[in-house]
């Protein structure tokens, strides 16, 4: 059985599954329940200065559902903790004492003034917490007050506050990044420059969930008005994966530890983020959808997968996929694939045909000998994968890699050599071949 123990910035946890700073980690009762359920660690819901903030008394959440009411995306307008600082500190201390083997990182958000940080850091240190996470991501409410995403969107502020914290505490400092920015590498580089020990990402994405067409207001709405919230859940995973990979492969930040967040719902999601460079993963929406028990599936699934692959510890696969993330310009343009439809498993829905016909390359025939029959025309197929993407039968359409002969579409022989855009004759900026 694989060892799931993690050591992230010296913070040890029995498994890489942490609960992200959010409602599930707001109180002792919740965190205790989480640890009983088997979570490896928590990032305590963001503390701020007293007097504590207040939340709306209307809906805080909105959801995107599939038609069978599976929750695909969640949006929230909840603020940081709405309890007194002292209460949170007392509870953190008690929980850490009761659960010394679990990771407790405390999320913080105070005004962008060094004194404010200097004041709160020793208080947190005193709880025995393992580290701090700087909430530079919250996209709603707090950002209007110059905190959260308002800091995370300005790399100079990120660097400055990270530095203040490093100078004023012995605890490891994790900077939580907002995705509501053009280039995620900029704040990550700034965090590193400021001395941060790690970054965590992504925080939630600015979102309006829908429009109530009866009252003509955003939904959900409070007394007829709505505001943007932060979007999370399975829908945001691809965005988070991209941002994590950008930081993991950026020469300036490639050694910066990452705690990944963003739609992680299953062990496989976690494994993917870890392969993309994350040392731990943080989960929120999945727990808020199903409860804490899901960690059992995550632990057993990750462990079984690691056993199957022969990985005995987490560090053996963290970051293993990063070298295979590249720029478009380095993709092999001589690599040719053609779609293949398995006639045995084809149920003849015709979707591959119609999407190819209407929206792509007219490369799938719909008829053979007067019968309904779907087959790929190699002379038109560009190997785009749209048919695979829309086929309702998994494995029915596959992509075959041509290694010899002629590409029926271009009439050109298959070139076994690697060749990319940088040297392509159509590229006016090409570099001369050696």
């Amino acid at each position: 059985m694989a060892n799931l123990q993690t050591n992230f910035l010296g913070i040890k946890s029995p498994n890489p599954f942490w609960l992200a700073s959010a409602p599930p980690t707001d109180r002792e009762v919740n965190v205790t329940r989480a640890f009983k359920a088997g979570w490896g660690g928590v990032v305590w819901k963001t503390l701020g200065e007293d007097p504590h903030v207040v939340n709306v008394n209307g809906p805080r959440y909105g959801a995107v559902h599939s038609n069978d009411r599976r929750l695909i995306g969640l949006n929230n307008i909840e603020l940081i903790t709405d309890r007194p600082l002292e209460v949170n500190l007392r509870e953190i201390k008690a929980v850490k004492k009761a659960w010394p083997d679990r990771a407790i990182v405390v999320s913080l958000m105070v005004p962008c003034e060094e004194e404010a940080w200097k004041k709160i850091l020793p208080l947190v240190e005193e709880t025995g917490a393992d580290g701090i996470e700087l909430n530079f991501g919250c996209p709603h409410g707090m950002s209007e007050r110059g905190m959260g995403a308002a800091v995370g969107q300005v790399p100079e502020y990120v660097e400055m506050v990270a530095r203040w914290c490093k100078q004023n505490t012995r605890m490891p400092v994790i900077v939580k990044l907002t995705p509501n920015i053009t280039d995620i590498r900029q704040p990550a580089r700034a965090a590193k420059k400021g001395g941060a020990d790690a970054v965590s990402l992504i925080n939630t994405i600015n979102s309006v969930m829908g429009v109530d067409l009866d009252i003509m207001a955003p939904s959900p709405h409070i007394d007829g008005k709505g505001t943007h919230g932060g979007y999370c859940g399975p829908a945001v995973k691809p965005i988070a994966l991209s941002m994590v990979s950008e930081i993991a492969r950026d020469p300036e930040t490639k050694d910066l530890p990452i705690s990944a967040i963003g739609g992680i719902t299953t062990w496989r999601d976690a494994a993917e983020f870890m392969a993309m460079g994350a040392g731990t993963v943080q989960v929120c929406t999945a727990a808020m959808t199903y409860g804490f028990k899901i960690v059992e599936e995550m632990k057993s699934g990750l462990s079984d997968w690691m056993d199957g692959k022969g990985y005995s510890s987490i560090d053996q696969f963290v970051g293993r996929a990063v070298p295979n993330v590249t720029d478009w310009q380095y993709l092999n343009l001589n690599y040719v694939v053609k779609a293949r439809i398995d006639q045995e498993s084809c149920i003849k829905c015709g979707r591959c045909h119609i999407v190819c016909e209407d929206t792509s390359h007219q490369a799938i025939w719909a008829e053979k000998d007067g019968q309904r029959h779907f087959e790929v025309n190699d002379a038109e197929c560009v190997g785009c994968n749209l048919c695979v993407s829309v086929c309702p039968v998994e494995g029915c359409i596959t992509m075959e890699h041509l290694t010899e002969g002629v590409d029926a579409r271009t009439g050109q022989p298959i070139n076994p050599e690697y060749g990319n855009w940088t040297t392509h004759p159509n590229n006016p900026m090409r570099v001369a071949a050696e």
Partner: protein
Amino acid sequence: MPSDIRGDRLSPAEVESNFADLHPLLSKYEAYVEADRCYFCHDAPCVTACPTGIDIPLFIRQILTDNPSGSAKTILGANILGGMCARVCPTETLCEQACVRETAEQKPVRIGELQRYATDHLMAAGVHPFERAASTGRKVAVVGAGPAGISCAHRLSMLGHDVTIFEAKPKGGGLNEYGIAAYKAVDEFARRELDFVLAIGGIELKIGMALGRDVALDALIADYDAVFLGLGLGATNGLGIAGEQLEGVVDAVDFIEDLRQAPALEKVAVGRRVVVIGGGMTAIDAAVQSKLLGAEEVTLVYRRGADRMNASAYEQSLAKEKGVVLKHWARPEKIEAGADGKVAAISFMKTRDEDGKLVDTGERYTLEADMVLKAIGQAFTPAPLKGAKAEIALEGGRIKAGADRRTSHPKVWAGGDAVAGGEDLTVAAVEDGKQAALSIHAALTGA
């Protein structure tokens, strides 16, 4: 054992429960989940399989996007009796058999139930969804207010023609009103649907007007610009065996008609031991309803195997589920009377298939019965056409009509069960009526 045919075998509450809606209306959530299963196929096989060519993927997508009224318009635009067809179509041999989900997982999208979800929604709103085109000033006579006639009349009215329907029975609706099993069309659905269809206007329904009795074909041809014959099948086939005239031997069609028109179902008389002869939908409907009325033993006997029955596999399993015993490979030989002179038993000769020919095996058995329901098919009655100067050619005992449903007479069209080569399905009759209307429209306007 004396004959025991009577009503009140079960309490009114038991009968009401037995005859409850076979497939209750889907809830909104159920409809969403089921609609979400549709793959929105290209050139969808289900559409090809539907005799009326309803754009099924489109109407399902309209349900999925919370537009059940639009969905119903898609359905009714192709099949104005989409509500009844959603209830009575043998979908497992039509659209649902063709569904790619049937290929994939033997669980087709429940197209019939989704169709009912949409059409019930629109009908509940009480607004007729179609408008009549500007009047053409043309008049068309439709004979028979069954599915073919109603469909034809509605389409003609939509196209701007004025229609008069002549119906022999006291109510319109045809088999929808008189012939469908009660649990498939509860709450007077046939009547409500007819009212809904006629609400388009421009259609006059004259009841109690039988062709050849109250109105003559020649007169219709003279008085109207075109005539559509949706006469249905007027006669039932006889067994041709001894004892057929005994009290207790009943045409299944008459039994079902009486049941459908009964003001209180529990009062419908049914035997204690019922034997149904036949293998089609009528046989199944008669057998199942006998059981639901409280008959103790109901046995359906068919002369060939289960695979040759006209009733679908689903209908056969429904009958078994309701407690009907299905017996195959036997033909009735003789109906025997008891001491009271009424039916007491029916004896059968076992049969087998010999190179496609049905032959006797020589083995016999007898079933005790106080009621024998005959359901071995119906026949077209050409009598209403006799004596007219206008000659309507027949083919195989039914009216001959082309793909455009035009008969041998240039002013007369026909459709439904009365026409040769049809499938004897409600949905096929609706299509006949629609196609005939389009052909009539083309003939009258040159369009």
